[in-house]
């Protein structure tokens, strides 16, 4: 910090606070890492269970996460 007046600076951003478990968060980070430019949705990786993302992506992300989780589900053979 160059001038001491900057100490009291505050940055303000709006977005959507996402609360989730840490596994789901890792999937979100992974999804974001595969995107670039304006399609990136992550605003800030906050902590283990919180991320902040851009509002316009919320519904899309929810669906993508659901799809990702669906891939990891074991479907039992219905004839068993």
């Amino acid at each position, binding site marked *: *910090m160059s001038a*001491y*007046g*900057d*100490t*009291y*600076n*505050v*940055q*303000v*951003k*709006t*977005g*959507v*606070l*996402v*609360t*989730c*478990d*840490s596994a*789901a968060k890792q999937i979100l980070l992974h999804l974001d890492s595969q995107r670039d430019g304006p399609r990136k949705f992550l*605003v*800030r990786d*906050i*902590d*283990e*269970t*919180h991320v*902040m*993302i851009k*509002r316009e992506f*919320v519904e899309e*992300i*929810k669906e993508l*996460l659901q799809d990702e*989780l669906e891939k990891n*589900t074991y*479907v*039992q053979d219905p004839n068993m």
Partner: protein
Amino acid sequence: MVQPSFSHPTKREDAGPSTSPTAALDAFLDNQHQSYYEELYKSEAVCLCILRSLPPVCRHIILHILWSHQPIRTVDVKLFLQMDLKTPLPELDEVVRPALNRKILHPMIHKKAKMQWPMNDTFKRGLRNALTGLGTSNSFGVPFERDTEEGIPTQEELVAYGEDTFEGILKYMVSSGLEIGFPVARPQEEVLQLLHASGLMTDPSDPTGQNPNINRLTITSKGFQFLLEDRQTQLWEILMYYLSAKEANSERSAVVLSMFFSLGCMQLGQDYSASASFPHAQAALNDLAQYGFIYRSSEDTDQFFPTHLATALCSGDATVTKSQDADEKRFLILETNYKIYAYTSNELEIAILNLFVDIRIRYPNLVVGKLDRKNVKAAMEKGISAHQIISYLSSHAHPQMYNSPPPLLHPTIVDQLHLWDRERNRLKAEDTVMFEFFSKELFDDTEAEARANAALQHSIPSQKLLFIEPHTKAAITEFVKERQARLRSGI
């Protein structure tokens, strides 16, 4: 972390608001004013039913002083309950809270160095009349004077009629939600309108809800939840929807509500005269016939028979309606391998099971199916929660299930249902405004301010990040600017 507590699902259910079958009624009554109660308590039947709905302690206190001319003194209540004489007054108020809420007792007053609750005079008179058989309001119904014994339905016939009519409505609701519906009779127009107005059914092609085509109604998630409730709860909910529809038309609902209570005090198998019993609520009585609460041999007769749906309304005890068909209701065997055996041939029950069970085999009196992820999740998409499925399964458990050591439903299944429920919403998204600080001092002050105004969503002291509700952004920004100015000038 949004970690569910699976270990005590039953505890949470107990704390839930919908434990009592009369929850809908209680919610309605809690919002009424003194004048509404004055009107209600003119009917002796209402006084009796409200008394029955109170907890035992309140009931005792009220009966204890019913014949006294004095208000209830707090000292007497303390002695009666064997409480410490130094018990603070608010604690005593809590004891009689249900009676205060129902305006049976007026709020505590201070008189000649004594604290006391005066009793509502209308209620006192009503209950005295109810107990002694005095009074002229005919609120317990006027028997119909008939000349012949012919054509009088038996109790069993009345029960069957009530059951058929009400289940017909439920069947119609559930069949609208299934891809392969089964043939059902369409309920009458007024019934459909109520189902739509109450939000239990909706017309998907009419998003505004203004001009629904009542022939094309489909069930909503609220409707699905309604289906899984026990019968007593369903009845009171329907009656309350009916009552609010009446109020929306700016009709007086007190007369109709006291009619519900009167019906609740009637005898199954007895016939009553509609014009003498409910001179001011004839239209409402006719409406209730469509739901199976009363039976009439023909449209224009003055004679009517209340069915068991009506007479069990105010029993104050949900088990009465249950016990009548306890054997029919207890038909489910759930194994630890998620297989379900349902000993039933009731179309409605099978249709409800079909909502969340993958039905594999169907015999005349037995249905075999399996709780699997796909079906349960499909049900959850429709708005049914894990709690509702669990309470449905346990309330319909076969007597054989009670022979194995408790808990009734195996924990693996209960936990799995909760897990499936959790899976759907692993993300909780809320609009936010993030404030990033560089000064610890400013961060702490702002955090305290946000916390005091209930604006704080989340805070990370280590990174000096604050997340606040968007609508408070202006106020918090203002606060931050003011603090900034002070801190800067302070140095």
